[in-house]
């Protein structure tokens, strides 16, 4: 029982401390800071600094990296984020980032489109994408 508790605690800590990597296409040379990334994912910034249009993609709610990203970068819980987007969607002022089902799919989409910005669990990052920032 004690061992189980220790293992559970370690797993919990690992999840809680899981790093999230914000990723872009390898050809994307824009400098991205936390504030800019937040604006992009909240629909307030629609282009990268070089003028290229930006398409943010989010992981589905169930992914641990999703809540970690929302907490660390957007400073909102999943419910707060939904309430935020409700105000925009139902007044025609914006649409939330499309949700992607897995880290693998996210990596594939970012690697093949210079306009896309996304995020994944940092441990899943491979050479097909560039890491803009880690949280």
């Amino acid at each position, binding site marked *: 029982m004690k061992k189980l508790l220790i293992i559970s605690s370690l797993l919990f800590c690992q999840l809680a401390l899981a790093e999230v990597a914000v990723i872009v296409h390898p050809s994307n040379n824009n400098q991205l800071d936390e504030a800019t990334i937040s*604006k992009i994912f909240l629909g307030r910034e*629609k282009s990268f600094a070089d003028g290229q249009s930006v398409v943010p993609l989010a992981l589905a709610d169930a992914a641990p990296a999703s809540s970690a990203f929302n907490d660390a970068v957007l400073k909102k819980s999943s419910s707060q984020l*939904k309430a935020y*987007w409700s105000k925009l969607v*139902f007044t*025609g002022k914006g*649409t939330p980032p499309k949700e992607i089902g897995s880290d693998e799919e996210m990596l594939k989409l970012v690697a093949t489109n210079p306009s896309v910005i996304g995020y994944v669990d940092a441990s899943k990052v491979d050479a097909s994408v560039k890491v803009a920032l880690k949280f």
Partner: protein
Amino acid sequence: MKPIILANKSFRSLGLVLVTALLPATALAEITLNGFASIRGTSVSSDGGLEPFPGFEEGELSFNPESLFALQAQADLGEGLSATVQLFGEGRSDFEVEARWAYLSYQFNDKHRLSAGRFANPIFHQSEYEKVGYAHNFSRLPKAVYIDFDFSTIEGVALDSQYNLGDYSLSTKVLFGGWSGESFSAVTNTFVDFGMDNIISANATLAGDWWQLFGGVFAAQIDGTSIDNSTVFPLAAAGISAASKTGATAGQIADFKSRIGWDNKDAFYWFSGFAIDRDNWLLDFEFVDYVVKDSTDAANQSWYLALGRRFDNVVLTVHTEDYAQSPDHDFLNGVAHPALLATGKGINNAFGQREFDGVGLSVRYDFHPSAAFKADYFSGTDTRAAVGDYKILSFGIDLVF
């Protein structure tokens, strides 16, 4: 909120109908469906026996007045062009479905979007999403400000703009349009035909990470023939009759009627306020001021102040609100006949008779990724003797999809 891209058979059928309605037959578009709903039981009681707001049912628990359902379809036509329809039905109208929004939008660059058609009338700061319960922490937005104006939709054109100013963001909206329908008259406790022409509206919100400052104005010309004939002039009939018997000339009476009437008069609305969301403390304030100028309408100055505290997935909010009116007899300056003067003052006072204030406690519990349970208790006082002290107790679920 997860947009639903039409994929399964049933959604595809609905999508085809919408595409047919929105687009040329040969066009192809990605349809995104979203929606919101509220299922809420509301119990209202008042000392005077009259419900404090139209649509509520005094003396009983009812799921009718505050339950609603909406389905929104947006067709993305590419290159910045989109078409949106929002179908909306609420319990108080027997869930009769209406196209609440139906508009085309063109995003012509990162900052500006032009829309044309039928869309929300941004009367006050939260008017555009007033019906989307999930978007706020109340069971209903404070009635003193959000009193369910019937002209919540508008037909016209609007320009939405978004600017980044360093760490701050500025969003603005300007629009031009009109509205016609029915409006509630507290004087007669009935709905009367009413219209607003040449509506011009502008508003702005400046936001930082944890704060917002906002304000806006809304001006329109009243199409008030019906309210004049059904409410204003009948109220004045006895006074005019008495005046004509005591020496008032036809010219004086015509002048008096043009002063007390609402038709072709200018309505002017403005609002301002702030919102703070920091360290799980929430503070909101909004003040509104509006009147139909140079008429028997009484100027309205109302506000609400709300303090909230977020505990993980629970939000507790306490708020106070005040709906106040100020009869002003300046529109009668120059009316010499005492009977006409007294009649004009009497009608102005009648339009200004209704005031209310109170305090409310609201609880929101986000028990599901797309749904929130809310319970709400409000205790208020209405100056109309038929209402008096009143209480509203409600509970229900708001969801988005």
